């Protein structure tokens, strides 16, 4: 086995931050290498350096035994490196084929014109070679995330990549799609390709990788063989202390009904049906979980419940009152808290400081405003209290929201919403992108609320999270609530099948058209 990549004492400094601190990393050819670490550990930065997006402040990159000085991704591509970013780098309105050949378009007519036929053919050939199923003529914005990821991989392969870097490739996939991806890994390594992938998930790394490197605070804290380590060892390496891996909600007797959703349907922004005929209810002291792969209507469902989207059909009643057409504000005033999935877009005004962000949603409430005038001193006390109680760091109420890390932003939002003294908490992906410490904290607070008799609607694509916290668990697929299960008596595989749109009694419903996977 030869060495494909060797990173030698890489240090990368950003203004005010050392993202990578003297990192060594060796990846053998033809292997799968996992990179683990908490948020902000420097994983992405390290890989961006390998890909030529960033120049290291210190240290050298060796590929195939030669020291390289990449000025741009183009150089890295020439050296046979391909990278699939955490957020896909695809041009939405362009087709699959257009995206794959972007920057390397085959030309005709003396180079003046893109040879579209040849581009299509090359894409088809390539995807056949690796057994991918993609239609070159689909627009990216019309295909599923899984397909988009395959397009990204094809894009790298089209450029002759031998070394593939994938940044958190499994974050948005169903367990089945994850399995499929790992199968692709095997196919690729069998053909001599080298794979480096970033993950937060210990199990995946153990399962799919040959070697695992853990980063913490920008430093390499250890490289281990996947078959010689344990979850516990990895977790400790990542966090630097022992952690509680799986939250468990103790059973508890629920009280009165708080939220009742009946036959709810809603459309997405494009006017395409996104939620169809969903019914469930949540009672006091109960956590109702919603599991599903991102983009199966959870967002629209939550938006309808919280008043950000008008349902096309069905009704929502909250605390015994029909609120189907009630405004967002009236729901806030009525004690509905909401941790939105997108903290950058919705949860916080990035240009406002925490004092101002602390009253987002309460700007008209008598607590902070009288006669239309805001009491800024009360608002400041409020923000400082949240910062204090929810351990927001650094504790600067006057700093703009933008200047806080994702985890701290999330803690602030969680604090603000929990401090509303809500009757219902709608929490979507409350721990997305936050590190394990913060995750633990948020889980504890959610369970506290439950213990206080509040109702919680928890939406997450992290199966272990919803499974561990919920009293009842609804699984969504293509806008439908496939089933409501008892999370304590259901296996991950069963839930995974529901997420993929297959009902357990699949034999019985075989005749029906496969639900939804339109792509």
């Amino acid at each position, binding site marked *: 086995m030869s060495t494909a990549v060797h990173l030698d004492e890489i240090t990368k400094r*950003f*203004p005010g931050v050392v993202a990578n601190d003297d990192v060594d990393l060796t990846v053998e050819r033809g292997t799968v290498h996992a990179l683990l670490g908490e948020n902000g550990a420097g994983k992405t930065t390290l890989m961006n350096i390998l*890909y030529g*997006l*960033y*120049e290291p*402040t210190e240290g050298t990159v060796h590929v195939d035994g030669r020291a390289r000085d990449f*000025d*741009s*991704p*183009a150089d890295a*591509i020439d050296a046979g490196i391909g*990278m699939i*970013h955490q957020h896909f*780098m*695809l*041009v*939405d*309105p*362009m087709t699959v084929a*257009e*995206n794959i050949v*972007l*920057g*390397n*378009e085959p*030309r005709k007519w003396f180079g*003046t*014109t*893109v040879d579209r036929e040849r581009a299509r053919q090359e894409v088809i050939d390539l995807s056949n070679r690796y057994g991918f199923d993609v239609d070159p003529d689909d*627009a990216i*914005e*019309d295909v599923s995330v899984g397909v988009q990821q395959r397009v990204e991989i094809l*894009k790298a392969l089209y*450029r002759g990549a031998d070394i593939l870097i994938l940044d958190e490739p499994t974050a948005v996939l169903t367990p089945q799609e994850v399995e499929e991806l790992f199968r692709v890994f095997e196919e690729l390594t069998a053909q001599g390709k080298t794979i480096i992938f970033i993950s937060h998930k210990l199990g995946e790394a153990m399962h799919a990788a040959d070697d695992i490197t853990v980063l913490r605070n920008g430093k390499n804290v250890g490289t281990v063989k996947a078959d010689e380590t344990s979850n516990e060892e990895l977790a400790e390496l990542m966090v630097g202390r022992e952690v509680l891996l799986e939250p468990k909600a103790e059973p508890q007797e629920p009280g009165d009904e708080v939220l009742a959703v009946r036959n709810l349907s809603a459309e997405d*922004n*494009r*006017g*395409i049906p996104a939620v169809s005929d969903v019914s469930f209810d949540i009672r006091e002291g109960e956590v109702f979980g919603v599991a599903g792969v991102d983009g199966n209507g959870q967002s629209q469902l939550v938006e309808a419940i919280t008043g950000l989207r008008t349902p096309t059909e069905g009704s929502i009643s909250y605390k015994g009152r029909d609120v189907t057409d009630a405004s967002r504000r009236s729901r806030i005033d009525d004690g509905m808290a909401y941790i939105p999935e997108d903290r950058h*877009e919705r949860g916080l005004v990035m240009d406002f400081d925490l004092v101002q962000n602390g009253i987002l949603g309460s700007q008209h409430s008598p607590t902070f405003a009288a006669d239309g005038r805001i009491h800024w001193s009360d608002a400041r006390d409020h923000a400082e209290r949240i910062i204090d109680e929810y351990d927001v760091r650094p504790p600067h109420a006057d700093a703009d929201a933008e200047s806080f890390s994702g985890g701290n932003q999330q803690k602030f939002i969680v604090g603000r919403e929990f401090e509303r003294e809500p009757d219902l908490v709608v929490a979507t992906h409350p721990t997305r992108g936050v590190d394990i410490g913060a995750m633990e904290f948020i889980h504890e607070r959610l369970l506290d609320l439950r213990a206080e008799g509040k109702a919680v609607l928890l939406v997450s694509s992290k199966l272990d999270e919803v499974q561990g916290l919920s009293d009842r668990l609804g699984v969504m697929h293509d806008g439908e609530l496939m089933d409501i299960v008892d999370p304590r008596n259901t296996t991950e595989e069963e839930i995974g099948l529901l997420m993929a749109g297959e009902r357990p009694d699949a034999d019985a419903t075989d005749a029906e058209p496969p639900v939804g996977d339109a792509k």
Partner: protein
Amino acid sequence: MSTTTIDRLRDTELSYRATLAGGALSVFLLIALLGLAFPSSIWGNLLAILTSRSTLSSALRLSVPITFAALGGIFSEKAGVVNIGLEGLLIISAFTAVITTAVVGPEMTVVGLPAIWIGFFAGVLSSVLFSALFAVVCIRFKADQIIAGLAVWLIALGLAPFAATVYYGGVNTDNLGTTLGTWTVPVLSDIPFFGALFDADPAVYMMLVAVPASWYVLNRTAFGRHVRASGENPKALDTVGVDVSRVRYAGVLLSGFLAGIGGSALSLGLGQFVGNNQTMVNGKGFIAIVAFLFGNYNPVGAFGASFLFAGLEAAQIRLQQVPGYGVPDSLIQTIPYVTVLVVLALVGRTRIPAASGEHYDTGDDNR
């Protein structure tokens, strides 16, 4: 102008076009019907105006500056740089074209090139240089594009009349006594109505070439794809090894080039630069922005919209002269603007390139 609220509207795009085209067609049919039924009524007059060769040729001529500026706007904005300074580019090129011709001497020829064509190219060059300044400010110095665009407009709006006053003693230049003239294709120009297409200003022919050419460049060449990617998702382009800044510079310079043709054609078609008030450009650059938004960033659509505005203007000029009905001219002059409003109210949003107006940064500090 936040782009975050703008949805992906692929599905409605077709219906958008259909609505526009259908609307225009049905209005025309209605006029035709009424006109044929009551030939001596206002509708009859209107029909006669709309089907006259003179109106067509006027509409073509009037659409030249708007179309070129709109094409320029498309390239710039598709590449991710909102260019609200098109008006300024038209002004600066219109002025430079005339002053250069005047300095060279309108009757002179230099190496076989008549002075007026030297002026024409000088006008284009000035607009390219101006857009280069804009590009550097926006791309290198990450200026707010809208504000920088306004600045380009304001500078041109001050500079051209200023220079005219320095040189001529008044905000208007003298008349050159010569224009770009017309090119007439024999035989074809005798066709009724459509003959206007073959008996037109040189700039009209240029426009009729530039529109499909722009479409081709945007949709069929690698450069065009890079332009689109740069406006939709610059990082995607960057990560496949195409220099986003280069593409954006090219897009902005191209917008200067195209707008420059429009500006030169505008003033040299008349042989004079008028610098009063909003200058002779008088909002055409802004109408161009409306035109390409209206045409959904498609060069052909933008031309269609420009032609619609110009056609309304041409019809309006003729309608004014129809005796015996009492609508004040100023009211007729609002027709194009009201039309735009009504259509916008009915059709609503257009799809703006996702990353246009935003800076692109590789995110690293040492490159």
